């Protein structure tokens, strides 16, 4: 019953948003940019930063899980590679955050490529186990390769990013604006990928791999592409994380739990969607905070919610199918309009 009602509301809601998308995005964008001036507490700002960070991590995994349908339980590994690469380059070699972050993302993408090359021929479950192992191996390397990673002591005094001499911190809003920027760029990139040949191809592979093959799609190549893009985004998020954690990262910041947390964001929010990543992240980050009064029980409730979710809404909270018509490329729309005109003239 409830499902029906929400469906009825969805079409007008979507067409409303679509109709006013320019003023709405200006409004929401202006509000989001203005948030640091609203006098929120440090804790609130920190929470907000984490929400956007996990939305970005969710979008990274979403490319793999939501588009091409491969489950990864080792994304904390890519997260760690991005963070450590960037942290080592900025502390030991004096690189700026910006170049360090790009390098971190690229190294994560490269490792993703090397990992994907042999493993993506494996089907679903086996791949998942490999990624699980990958996450643990990364953790082991971080703990044991002391000359580079400083082992369990972690890396200290990671400098904060600087932009034309202005130091970005949590209290001056810099951290917030930076992740707002990074997650927005990521969201736009995911959107354009999804609505291009590559994105369609990935979703086709998820929907029916044999049929995709018979359309001439080189499925392994596209799975590797998804793995690389996913690792790149996750590595970039890792580089960001390395600077906001009071200038300090250690292997414990990248344990298995974080892989699960990223996975939960994607599943709760709605696999394959971008809006769902923001929502899933907000829900997951805020839940333990809001329900603090439940003490130890909050995680029981949290687990229960996840189970209920899987049972009754497996597509995720915001995982609805769009009711809007297919968005035609601009030039195609123009050509169709001209055709229509020619027809009426005749």
């Amino acid at each position, binding site marked *: 019953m409830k499902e029906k009602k929400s469906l009825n509301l969805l079409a007008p809601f979507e067409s409303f948003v679509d109709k006013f998308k320019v003023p709405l995005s200006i409004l929401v964008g202006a509000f989001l940019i203005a948030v640091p001036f609203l006098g929120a507490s440090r804790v609130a700002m920190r929470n907000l930063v984490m929400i956007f960070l996990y939305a970005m991590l969710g979008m990274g995994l979403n490319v793999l899980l939501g588009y091409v349908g491969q489950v990864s339980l080792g994304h904390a590994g890519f997260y760690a590679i991005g963070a450590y690469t960037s942290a080592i380059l900025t502390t030991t070699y004096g690189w700026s955050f910006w170049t360090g972050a790009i390098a971190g993302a690229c190294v994560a993408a490269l490792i993703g490529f090397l990992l994907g090359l042999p493993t993506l021929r494996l089907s679903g479950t086996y791949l998942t186990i490999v990624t699980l192992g990958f996450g643990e191996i990364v953790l082991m390397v971080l703990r044991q390769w002391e000359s580079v990673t400083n082992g369990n002591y972690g890396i200290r005094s990671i400098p904060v990013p600087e932009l034309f001499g202005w130091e970005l911190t949590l209290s001056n809003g810099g951290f917030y604006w930076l992740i707002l920027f990074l997650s927005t760029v990521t969201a736009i990139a995911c959107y354009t990928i999804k609505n291009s*040949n590559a994105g369609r191809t990935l979703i086709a592979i998820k929907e029916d791999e044999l049929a*995709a093959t*018979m359309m001439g799609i080189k499925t392994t190549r596209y799975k590797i592409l998804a793995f690389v893009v996913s690792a790149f985004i996750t590595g970039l998020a890792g580089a960001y994380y390395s600077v906001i954690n009071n200038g300090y990262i250690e292997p414990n910041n990248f344990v298995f739990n974080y892989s699960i947390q990223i996975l939960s964001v994607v599943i709760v929010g709605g696999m394959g969607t971008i809006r769902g990543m923001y929502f899933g992240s907000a829900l997951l980050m805020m839940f333990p905070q809001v329900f603090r009064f439940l003490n130890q029980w909050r995680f029981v409730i949290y687990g229960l919610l996840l189970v209920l979710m899987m049972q009754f809404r497996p597509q995720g909270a915001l995982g609805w199918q769009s009711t809007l018509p297919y968005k035609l490329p601009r030039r195609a729309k123009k050509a169709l309009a001209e055709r229509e005109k020619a027809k009426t003239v005749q």
Partner: protein
Amino acid sequence: MALLQAKEITMQFGGLLAVDSVSFHVDKGEIVSLIGPNGAGKTTVFNMLTGVYEITSGAIEFEGKEIHRKTPQEIVDMGISRTFQNLRLFGKMRVIENVLVGTHIRTKYNFFDGLLRTPRYQKEEAEKTLKAIDILESIGLGDKINELASNLPYGDQRKVEIARAIATDAKLILLDEPAAGMNPAESEELLRFIRELRDKGYTIILIEHDMGVVMNISDRIYVLDHGKMIANGLPREIANNPQVIEAYLGGKREK
């Protein structure tokens, strides 16, 4: 020279001889039907032609080039495309997106063109979209391009599969029971569409159970039974062939 030539192709799965040195050819611009009782090996032949199975022995030539050692992707690229007996649409994608996936193999712009929406992406994406719309309109699905493929009625889903196969720019289209699940009016319309395809220069191989459809549309017919080719010829020859009647009815017809 024949467009497609299968020379004594054999498919063996362990002890099971699914297709036993079958030979046939298809000329350009023909509609050729492959018929036979259930389990005769018709779909297996399609899987051999499209590279899903690696044939045990024999040879397949398409436009004079051997294709039986090529991957399915290479075979699609050469111009052979197919539909599936049990529908294999991309259910959660829209109808137009399904057809656009068919254009994948002819899409030249790369990942970064799509990511950054370069002029190359914009030009080609528009071309491909228009092409997909044209194909869908020609098959009578012009008003359904926005629907999710899985929401369509069965007959329409079959049409989307055909549209998707056409979108690969195939010269030879293999249709695996295209009329299954269609009502008489729908299959009549489908027949007209398949003929139109032939008139446009496509060559078609058809697997079909509906004898009305087969006899009506085929230029030539091959009959498979238990993996062996038992007859071939014009529709009216096949209809009167005692071996074919025996294969279908399981015994000689009383006269």
